[in-house]
């Protein structure tokens, strides 16, 4: 075969080059280091040739955009049709302050909203709970009741924007509030679009915002998915998240592997509920990180898309191509940002956003350069949004699809990461699935080991981090940091007290009683949750109903 012949020729040529030109150069000038590795510790060779991708079968392994196995992208025209959704995660202080920031971002050309909730809301506590002390309105907006939600989306038409909500354990409650507000605005449920994170497995593994034990948590997760596919067809009912896995220290391959393992667990749970795979799978979405090593990130995204397509088709027997698409949001890497020389972060974010675009994301959040110092200021947020607008409009990355395909290196890396994903999935399957692997601490330990290795590499200066272990300098203290008003807590408490005093107590009690009844049965909880939020039951009160039925989760700590 002539193709084989030409490959042999390449191989022979490379050997000759290695022994000739390379050796000659090395004898005079050694390379910077003995071995080169990516930030995820994947070995990187001096040169890649057709020999490294000799097994690549174009039709089977790459295919065409919008077609199985979706390696090259999930849509036939990708960003030539329209850019990814530019969606900056934001929220702080009161609902009114956050509403103001959202309206500012929409004016600046942002195309979707992304709501950050404060930690009490995420953990299912009201603003006046003792554990909420000091946390109200800090890392996100404080939402206690439907009244706050109404203010949050004031003058924002919910049929015109899509909204992503980073909410997990109480996802049903916040979605219920959102739907109730849509109804008030006269927007029918089938016109409402957006995403709830609703991914409890990664909360248990790495993010820490869990409430109930895994089993009842999974029940609420599946209830939401089930309700959405029947009633809110444009809603992404889960965003299976690798972002936080990576932030916790995993490698790129681990991020993708553990996320897809979680995905498999959710699909399995829905199938076990009796849902047909093609009914709900098209609404599954994912959420990933993007670090500064552009080529490795692109390979990660491509490997993930291909692997997920195969899982859905081969393992779950999906027929609808939409069920096989790994559609995902990307956020640039929060942990890659340095408090030292913070303006350098603008460059990191630009490279990470470029990687996300070359990798084929569906939506993107670009971090603000000051996030290792404080919550982002408006100026920093504007630069972050402009960064992705520059990538979209000026870099050319959006004009042709999957432009790095065919690069010997990127294809070899894609294969390598896919093999790593497959290894992990097989290991996790052998343990009896993700839930067991998490309970045994396997996933946590793998991530922590990677975090540890990375830290040691930085401290031994084996790996360079600009501004941290090389090119350091004395700096004056940073100025212009965002301060959240410390009185938010008191204001929210007072507002909550007033709301509780003014609501119809009979209606409120009846709604919570009904919710309790439904929660103890096999019925889907969503309609009862919607009824409860309309009766002004708070996030904390609804979550307390479930706490009393399901108990609270205390994970084993694996250090």
């Amino acid at each position, binding site marked *: 075969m002539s193709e084989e012949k030409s490959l042999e020729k390449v191989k022979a040529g490379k050997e000759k080059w290695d022994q000739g030109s390379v050796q000659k150069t090395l004898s005079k000038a050694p390379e910077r280091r003995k071995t080169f590795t990516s930030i995820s510790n994947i070995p990187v060779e001096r040169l890649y040739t057709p020999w490294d991708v000799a097994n690549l079968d174009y039709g089977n392994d790459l295919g065409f955009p919008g077609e199985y196995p979706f390696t090259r992208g999930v849509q036939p025209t990708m960003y030539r049709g329209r850019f990814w959704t530019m969606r900056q995660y934001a929220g702080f202080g009161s609902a009114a302050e956050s509403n103001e920031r959202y309206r500012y971002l929409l004016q600046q050309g942002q195309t979707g909203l992304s709501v950050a909730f404060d930690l009490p809301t995420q*953990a299912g506590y009201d603003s006046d709970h003792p554990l909420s002390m000091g946390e109200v309105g*800090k890392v996100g907006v404080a939402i206690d009741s439907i009244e706050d939600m109404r203010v949050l989306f004031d003058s924002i038409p919910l049929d015109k924007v899509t909204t992503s909500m980073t909410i997990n354990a109480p996802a049903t409650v916040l979605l219920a509030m959102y739907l109730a507000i849509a109804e008030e605005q006269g927007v029918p449920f089938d016109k409402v679009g957006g995403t709830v994170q609703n991914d409890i497995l990664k909360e248990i593994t790495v993010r*820490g915002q869990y409430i109930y034990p895994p089993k009842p948590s999974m029940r609420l997760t599946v209830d939401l998915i089930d309700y959405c596919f029947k009633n809110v067809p444009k809603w992404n009912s889960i965003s299976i998240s690798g972002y936080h896995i990576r932030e916790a220290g995993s490698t790129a391959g681990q991020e993708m592997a553990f996320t897809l393992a979680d995905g498999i667990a959710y699909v399995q749970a829905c199938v076990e509920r009796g849902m047909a795979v093609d009914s709900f799978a098209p609404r599954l979405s994912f959420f990933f990180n993007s670090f500064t090593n552009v080529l490795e990130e692109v390979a990660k995204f491509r490997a993930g898309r291909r692997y997920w397509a195969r899982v859905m088709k081969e393992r779950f027997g999906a027929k609808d191509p939409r069920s096989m698409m790994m559609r995902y949001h990307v956020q640039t890497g929060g*942990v890659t940002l340095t408090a030292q020389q913070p303006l350098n972060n603008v460059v990191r974010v630009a490279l990470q956003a470029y990687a996300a675009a070359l990798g084929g994301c569906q939506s993107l959040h670009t971090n603000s350069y000051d996030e290792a110092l404080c919550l982002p200021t408006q100026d920093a947020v504007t630069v972050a949004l402009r960064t992705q607008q520059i990538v979209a409009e000026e870099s050319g990355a959006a004009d042709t699809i999957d432009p790095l395909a065919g690069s010997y290196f990127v294809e070899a890396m894609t294969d390598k990461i896919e093999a790593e994903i497959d290894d992990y999935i097989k290991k996790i399957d052998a343990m009896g699935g993700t839930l067991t692997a998490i309970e045994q601490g396997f996933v946590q330990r793998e991530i*922590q080991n990677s975090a540890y290795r990375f830290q040691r590499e930085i401290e031994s200066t084996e790996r360079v981090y600009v501004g941290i272990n090389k090119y350091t300098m004395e700096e004056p203290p940073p100025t212009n940091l965002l301060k959240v008003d410390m009185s938010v807590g008191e204001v929210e408490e007072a507002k909550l007290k007033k709301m509780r005093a003014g609501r119809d107590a009979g209606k409120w009690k009846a709604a919570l009683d009904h919710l309790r009844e439904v929660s103890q049965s096999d019925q889907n909880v969503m309609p009862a949750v919607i009824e409860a939020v309309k009766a002004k039951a708070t996030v904390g009160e609804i979550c307390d109903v479930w706490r009393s039925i399901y108990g609270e989760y*205390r994970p084993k700590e694996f250090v």
Partner: protein
Amino acid sequence: MAQERKIKIIVAKPGLDGHDRGAKLLARIFAEAGMEVVYTGLRQTPEMIVETALQEDADVVGMSSLSGVHNYFFPRAVELLKEKGLDDVLVVGGGIIPREDVDGLKNAGVKAIFGPGTDTNDIVTFIKDNVRN
């Protein structure tokens, strides 16, 4: 004279913050540096942290916070330690702590604040140099 006792350190996550990468990493590094480490896990109130310090007869309490609640939690823990007569327990903190808050925390009795990018060897050294004898 008794042989040198191992330094006992409580690594704690106050409040609702779930960012525990730093806390867990340091727990491991302290153990490798020869200390005895108790990691509290998440969602600790100052009361819970101080109770653990008391029960474990700890020499050091290290708290990590990335959600902006350090100004409430860190001084409160110091205060409670004093109330329990544990004045000589070394208290240190880390996480996302704005530089302008550092002096206030130090005045309140937190002996050192370690921000992002700190070399963990420096933290170990600081603890060894400042822990009670």
